[in-house]
């Protein structure tokens, strides 16, 4: 079956009433857990896994997949409206999304986020069907040295993400990496910096730190009446993006979709990394980079498309090779095994209704998400008209309960509080906590790949950079870092010449 016949067959599976219902239920639950800070798709999937026993394998997978990409979709809502990232991948959306809200442009921000997610989903599905299996095989060629170089260069390139000074970004990265070393060391199992606490042995969760640095810190900022401008009232006609906003958003959406899809193929917190990368790229390509962080629509469109693209892309290694690259795909693999379905490359031939049914259902799910979300943009924006005491109290409760719900841990609430106060003070001192969150997410991957690489090359670290793929990544990374500096030097030399 060629990809188009496969997609056609997939639609005949996805549009069966039972599968359609599973798809709607999945995206609805996903949107709800995405909107709520803390509770992520993993929790919802784990909770609903037993309910899938009575379903067909295709319906079960369709529902679980819907929860995952639905949560990516919902994660932007609170990030844009309240600066509380519903999902960790929405951290970067808070940077410009919330600034748009403060300028009375919450409607266009939500609208562009929804359309960006839809476009990314659609591109991702085509990619999954057409080039997915080949790309998945290429991604498997990445070993620890390749991941180490990729992650390291990613951190270096993304350190100029927000326009804050390089040295401040380096300090935030160091702090994030430092926090990531708390807990059991991944290779030897030795406890580090736990001070004898069993709770700390598992390491510090990303969610309480991210929600604290953004949600609780914003709550503390809201307490400063004289410093915080209230969101401006929004008129109905202001719910839609203007022509110029559309023009500025369309290419970031396309680029973000492609970046997200490609990042989805590799292991790790790819939705988050893709969103950060898209933001960095758009800032670099923009004619007005100074607007980033102050409400640039490109800063919402690109990252939102990217995190949804990554969600779709992450299904490729699972469906094409049977390899789960993250906890969510591992949960879906569990569902496949429970239902006795074939996993691995034979899934496409042994259970075509699952492979093509899930692939096509994502398109149905993306349409459902747009239909579910667009009519509610007005209602979401109307929330901003509620009194400040109500909004602040609701943020506090959602942040606290959502964070507790991640692991039913009281430690997480204390971490949330400490991160909140730290986030508030860091902003006062002009630090950007987004870099800390990124480093915290990448820390374990960086450490594990470094240790594995050093074992592999028997301590001869130069060898890490001599492998063909790492050398290529290194050259590309160096070009990305150095090219703007060289171009700027040429431009200033040219300007000086024309003046003389």
């Amino acid at each position: 079956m060629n990809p188009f016949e496969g997609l056609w067959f997939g639609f005949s599976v996805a549009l069966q009433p039972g599968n359609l219902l599973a798809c709607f239920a999945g995206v609805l639950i996903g949107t709800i857990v995405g909107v709520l800070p803390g509770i992520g798709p993993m929790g919802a999937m784990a909770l609903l896994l037993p309910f899938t026993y009575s379903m067909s394998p295709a319906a079960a997978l369709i529902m679980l997949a819907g929860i995952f990409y639905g949560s990516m979709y919902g994660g932007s809502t609170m990030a844009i409206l309240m600066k509380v990232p519903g999902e960790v991948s929405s951290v970067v959306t808070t940077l410009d999304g919330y600034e748009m809200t403060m300028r009375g442009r919450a409607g266009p921000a939500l609208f562009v986020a929804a359309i960006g997610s839809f476009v990314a989903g659609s591109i991702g599905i085509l990619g999954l069907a057409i080039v997915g299996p080949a790309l998945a095989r290429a991604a498997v060629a990445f070993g620890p040295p390749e991941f180490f170089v990729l992650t390291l260069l990613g951190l270096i390139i993304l350190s100029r993400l927000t326009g804050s000074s390089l040295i401040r970004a380096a300090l935030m990265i160091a702090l994030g990496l430092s926090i990531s070393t708390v807990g059991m060391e991944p290779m030897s199992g030795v406890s580090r910096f736990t001070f004898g606490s069993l709770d700390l042995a598992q390491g510090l969760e990303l969610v309480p730190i991210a929600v604290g640095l953004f949600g609780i810190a914003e709550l503390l900022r809201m307490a400063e009446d004289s410093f915080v401008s209230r969101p401006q009232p929004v008129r109905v006609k202001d719910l839609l993006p203007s022509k110029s906003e559309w023009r500025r958003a369309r290419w970031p959406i396309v680029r973000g979709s492609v970046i997200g899809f490609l990042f989805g193929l590799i292991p790790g917190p790819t939705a988050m990394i893709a969103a950060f990368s898209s933001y960095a790229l758009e800032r670099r390509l923009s004619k007005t980079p100074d607007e980033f962080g102050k409400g640039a629509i490109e800063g919402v469109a690109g990252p939102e498309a990217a995190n949804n693209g990554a969600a779709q892309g992450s299904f490729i290694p699972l469906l094409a090779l049977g390899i789960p690259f993250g906890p969510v795909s591992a949960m879906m693999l569990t569902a496949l095994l429970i239902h006795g379905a074939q996993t691995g490359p034979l899934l496409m031939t042994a259970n075509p209704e699952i492979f093509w049914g899930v692939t096509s259902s994502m398109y149905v799910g993306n349409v459902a998400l747009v239909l579910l979300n667009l009519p509610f943009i007005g209602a979401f924006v109307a929330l901003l008209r509620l009194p400040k005491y109500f909004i602040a109290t609701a943020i506090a409760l959602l942040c606290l309960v959502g964070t507790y719900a991640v692991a039913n841990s009281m430690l997480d609430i204390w971490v949330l509080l400490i991160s909140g106060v730290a986030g508030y003070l860091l902003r006062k001192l002009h630090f950007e906590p987004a870099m800390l969150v990124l480093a915290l997410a990448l820390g374990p991957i960086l450490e594990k790949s470094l240790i594995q690489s050093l074992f592999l090359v028997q301590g001869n670290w130069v060898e890490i950079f001599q492998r063909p793929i790492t050398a290529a990544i290194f050259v590309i990374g160096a070009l990305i870092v150095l090219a703007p500096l060289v171009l700027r030097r040429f431009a200033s030399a040219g300007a000086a010449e024309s003046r003389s």
Partner: protein
Amino acid sequence: MTQRAANLAVATAFMAIGAGQIAMALRLPGGSLAEPGPNLFPVFVGALMSASATVYLVRELLHGSTGRLDVKEQLPKIAGISLTIALFALLLPRLGFVPTAFLLQLAMLRLFGLKRLVPGMALSAAMTLVAYFLFTPLLGVRFPNAQWLG
């Protein structure tokens, strides 16, 4: 407090954290580059932090920031909100979710300007119930049992 003093304090704090991390990491089992131990990465990270903090400190000493960092006026409110959250963390395992969430919201509403008690209590009760039904029956979150209420 001046911005310069705050920046110097931050640089010193980061230097101390970096140095502390290196010192503690060196007490962990070591290894070699060919067989790295659990202290390798933390030592690298501690060194990165100390080096960055030193550059930050030197830069601040050479080209000091101007301006003031005024948090004094906001301090009571910030402290009030932080204390309320800390109380939530302390009371949740002792009183259970419903009474603790109710008290948290009542305090937050007052801190953010709703001073009248009756509307505050009504709103807190309504929001607590909504949160309870959203998180417990629908999302399956298990809150700790109330130790003080048996």
